[in-house]
């Protein structure tokens, strides 16, 4: 795969890349927020 970004990105590639990053991150943020609620109990 070329390192030069002259080639475009398909919508599927974009969705997969965002999902690859966002899904674990949202899981981590959700867990942290649930834990943080203890501060207000």
């Amino acid at each position, binding site marked *: 795969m070329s390192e030069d970004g002259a080639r475009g990105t398909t919508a599927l590639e974009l969705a997969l890349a965002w999902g690859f990053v966002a899904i674990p991150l949202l899981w981590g943020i959700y867990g942290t927020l649930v834990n*943080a609620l203890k501060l207000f109990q």
Partner: protein
Amino acid sequence: MTKLIGIAKSAPDDWKLTDLGWIFSIAIFFLGASAAVFGRWVEEGGPRRAMFASAVCFSGGFLISALGVWLHQLWIVYLGYGVLGGIGLGLGYISPVSTLIKWFPDRPGMATGMAIMGFGGGAMIASPLSVMLMGYFSSPTHVGVAETFVVLGLVYACFMLVGAAIVRTPPPGWKPEGFVPPATPKKLVTTRDVYVYQALKTPQFWMIWVVLCMNVTAGIGVLGQASAMSQEMFPGRVTAAAAGGFVGLLSIFNMGGRFVWASTSDHIGRKNTYYVFFLLGIVLYSLVPYFGTTGNLTLFIICFLVILSMYGGGFATVPAYLRDMFGTRYVGAINGLLITAWSVAGILGPVLVNYIRQYQIDSGVPKAQAYNVTMYIMAGLLVVGLIANFLIKAVDDRHHMDLETADEVIGVG
């Protein structure tokens, strides 16, 4: 963490907490050293090679650490997580910065904010995942750390190698659609480049070094002690579980601040952003003792959330500040050299908070008030940062690379 999976007592041959603390210190040292030493290699070889090396080192470090835990040899863990993992961290920290800056010439702050936010976000995934895995692999006679290290190493390898495989740099001269560079460049934003080691000869590099060091020292000291501090300043009102929640909330603001503040710096300028960090920081650190004394928990929490957002923001905005001063060509490598400020702050911040607290308690100050002096010292550190930021001017023309030098450096000439 072991308490979370039900381990209440230590065994006679357990490693001491002080010995284990060295693992983290070695990792942070090698993070800074590798970022400083390999920065030029990362810039000139491209991000894919660097990210691949980072993935091999970081995940390899976990696998070697698993072996160390399995054989109960601490030196192997030092070598694995400390040395190899630290090198992987350093390479992985600087690789995305310059790549993203090149993709977003119109929004360099937002670009570095995204890169550095990823580094903060990782902690939010790794921490609960580690607890979950240790819970899964533990048994009444076994903690499950080695197996957790193996799984984490393989998961990191998978994610990092995918990132290395799909990363791309923009073609030369690439600009986002509709972006027109300003006809008259701003005073503190250069359109030329400074060679990585030439940057070390400029006062601007060292002023930004002081700016970052002061900003991080203040934040990192508080972050490490946030749980104990909230419980000691509000005894009976903040339980251990609530303090854990407080630390989690701080992590979210630390991560969010990286993106929000760095993006804001694209609009108000890098120097002004750091003025906000320092001036607002001085006010907030000075108010913390008052909120502690008056028992105002809500304002105490708000103060620290804003402080931690600015701590993350300081980290994330600095690569864009470097790009403004020294150009895009070697920004990742120069950022690598600047990370030594983080290493110094990583020692200075916790030491200041811990030792001054202990000194206060030994002098008979009640625990609830033991942090007051520390807060004023932190505010004082921010005054030093404010002055350093004030002294930053545009880089002198003689430090810039001319076209022939640039060609020689990248091997064209």
